[in-house]
């Protein structure tokens, strides 16, 4: 649970989004309320930002960097938005503002849907949202001879009932609300304590009940739900980051758009799924791939690739040694491991099965086996490369530390200044970024059907891979004091080249999504 004094919102704006905004007219293609800007690629290499060269709109597949503003009042801005919505509903439906707020939260801030549903049947809509029609204000009251149903106390203390008139003593209510807010992190769904009563404890009532600290937390949680409920807002998933980002993207667009956004905290992630940057794979592919890697669907593949079935009882058998004369453990059937035919036909032809060509044993079975063996091999091919790059990315965090040392060394042993040795830091940064892209190209390639477009994709991938490995090798080389200038030249060149290859691959892939050029080997449910 988040800490108490965490106040969440500050909406970030990405500096880059203003700096590089070649396709402003694109905004129209999205919901015009947001200022989506295409900032092509990442901040590392603004000069290779190539979407500007593309025909209009091409870049949108890349990323739509987010945006509300970053000025200090941004958290106020979120509140302001809510206030406006509440006022609108209040006015439109002639309700009290607390009621309007509860209704809006129930409808996840979808004003139009709310108004429509309400117009159809006001009573049932209010009841479903947890608002009692009479709308009586909850007020603290002393009632003579009142026994609270929660603590069974008869002392004449202040009592409180929501509009549903289920009355309890104030201290019980306060404890209840406090525990909901502090222990459970609940805010907009706190209900009346009565059994089977769904009336919502609104903000005004909470104000009456709890201490300042709890109230603050309640408000911040309540504010949080505004972002959680909204489809166009998302919290930055980086640890300890309190920014929310806005991006208008529909779930059904995710098969052709990868809405990569960068938060002010510099964390780059996909707005569609909240995962770290996974270009050039689109979200559905990423989901499938990660699931495939995580679950044991490959276990069954392994079983079929490495075992055979008894031709009689279909028990799964793994042969881990011994001769080819098999006796099934469960049905006692004797057969030949090589041709899968009955052993009785073999006579004395031990270890030398000549029947393979003649009869071929269970041809269908063999076919299925070799197929699944091929499919396993194919998967492992892509998975190994995917995992390999992932591993390298992790190792590159160490590399970054080593580079820092190297940079210090260079400053000591040569006339280069701090700014002049930054090329190493930049190279490492580029390396990591390109490896991330490479990593995901393998997941994508796994699902791509074989055709000419895929061949081009794989060429691009190979080029990038080669470039990346070249750069990586260069960085791993021990430092030769004589050749620092040369090293600097080479590294800088390679870094630029790698970035360029990466950009080319991304641009082409994303254009491919747009032109519907990619064909998947299996039906991908988008």
């Amino acid at each position: 649970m988040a800490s108490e004094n965490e106040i969440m919102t500050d909406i970030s704006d990405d500096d880059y989004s203003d700096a590089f905004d070649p396709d402003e007219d694109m905004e129209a293609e999205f919901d015009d309320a947001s200022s989506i800007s295409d900032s092509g690629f990442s901040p590392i290499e603004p000069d290779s930002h190539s979407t500007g060269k593309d025909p209009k709109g091409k870049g949108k597949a890349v990323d739509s960097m987010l945006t509300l503003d970053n000025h200090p009042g941004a958290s106020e801005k979120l509140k302001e938005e809510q206030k406006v919505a509440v006022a609108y509903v209040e006015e439109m439906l002639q309700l009290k503002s607390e009621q309007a707020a509860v209704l809006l939260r129930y409808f996840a801030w979808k004003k139009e849907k709310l108004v429509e549903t309400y117009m159809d049947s006001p009573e049932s809509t209010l009841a479903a949202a947890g608002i009692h029609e009479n709308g009586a204000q909850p007020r603290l009251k002393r009632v003579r001879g009142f026994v609270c149903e929660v603590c069974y106390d008869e002392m004449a203390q202040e009592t409180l009932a929501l509009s549903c008139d289920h009355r309890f003593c104030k201290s019980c209510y306060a404890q209840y609300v406090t525990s909901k807010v502090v222990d459970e992190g609940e805010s907009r769904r706190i209900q009346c304590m009565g059994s089977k009563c769904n009336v919502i404890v609104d903000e005004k009532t909470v104000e009456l009940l709890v201490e300042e600290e709890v109230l603050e937390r309640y408000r911040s949680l309540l504010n949080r739900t505004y972002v959680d409920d909204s489809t166009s807002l998302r919290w930055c998933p980086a640890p300890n980051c309190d920014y929310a980002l806005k991006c208008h993207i529909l779930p059904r667009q995710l098969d052709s758009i990868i809405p990569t956004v960068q938060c002010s905290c510099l964390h780059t992630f996909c707005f569609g799924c909240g995962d770290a940057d996974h270009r050039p794979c689109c979200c559905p592919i990423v989901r499938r791939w990660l699931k495939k890697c995580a679950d044991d669907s490959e276990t069954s593949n392994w079983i079929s690739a490495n075992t055979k079935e008894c031709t009689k009882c279909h028990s799964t058998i793994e042969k881990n040694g011994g001769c080819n004369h098999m006796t099934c453990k469960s049905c006692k059937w004797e057969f030949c491991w090589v041709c899968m035919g009955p052993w009785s036909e073999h006579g004395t032809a031990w270890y030398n099965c000549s029947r393979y060509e003649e009869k071929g044993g269970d041809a269908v079975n063999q076919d299925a086996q070799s197929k699944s063996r091929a499919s396993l091999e194919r998967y492992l091919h892509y998975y190994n490369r995917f995992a390999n790059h992932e591993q390298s990315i992790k190792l590159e965090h160490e590399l970054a530390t080593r580079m820092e040392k190297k940079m210090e060394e260079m400053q000591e042993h040569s006339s280069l200044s701090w700014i002049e040795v930054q090329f190493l830091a930049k190279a490492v940064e580029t390396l990591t970024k390109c490896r991330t892209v490479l990593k995901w190209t393998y997941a994508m390639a796994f699902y791509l059907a074989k055709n000419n477009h895929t061949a081009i994709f794989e060429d691009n991938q190979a080029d990038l891979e080669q470039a990346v490995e070249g750069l990586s090798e260069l960085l791993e080389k021990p430092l030769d004091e004589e050749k620092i200038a040369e090293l600097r030249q080479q590294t800088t060149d390679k870094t630029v080249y790698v970035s360029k290859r990466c950009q080319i691959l991304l641009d082409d892939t994303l254009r491919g999504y747009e032109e519907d050029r990619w064909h998947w080997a299996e039906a991908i449910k988008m």
Partner: protein
Amino acid sequence: MSRSTMNTALKRLMTEYKQLTAAENDESMFTAGPISENDFFKWSCLISGPTDTPFEGGVFEAELTFPRDYPLSPPKMKFNPPLFHPNIYASGDVCISILHAPGDDPNAYESSSERWSPVQSVEKILLSVISMLAEPNIESGANIDACKVFRDNREQYDEIIRSHVRQQLDI
């Protein structure tokens, strides 16, 4: 947990105990009370098997464990020894809607039925458990074997329970 919630829990449990003992008579289907005066958060209860069910004639012992923030959170109930019943886990833990807070539904089956709220009480829980004994809810089963027998072979189910009851009464 603050001191005051604990006091509320204690006060409330004492009052409930007082009311239960006051209301008790020969007709009562159950008795319940703290195991020791030092710990009001652990109760023991005896439930008699409802009439016209295979449980008839049996007396079943169960333990109630109350959380420190009772009655905001529900207690836990466990039959000791465990009972063979579709809604009782093999460990003896009772799985019934009234013992779950709203929103906390392990099987997502209980949306319409009664949930825990601070106005429920020990008495209401025990009455619910008694009616659960008479009418198991196999939609959200805790003991799958019991669910199966109950659904497919009622006679066998009744017999299992009757023998369990006999065994318990030592006859």
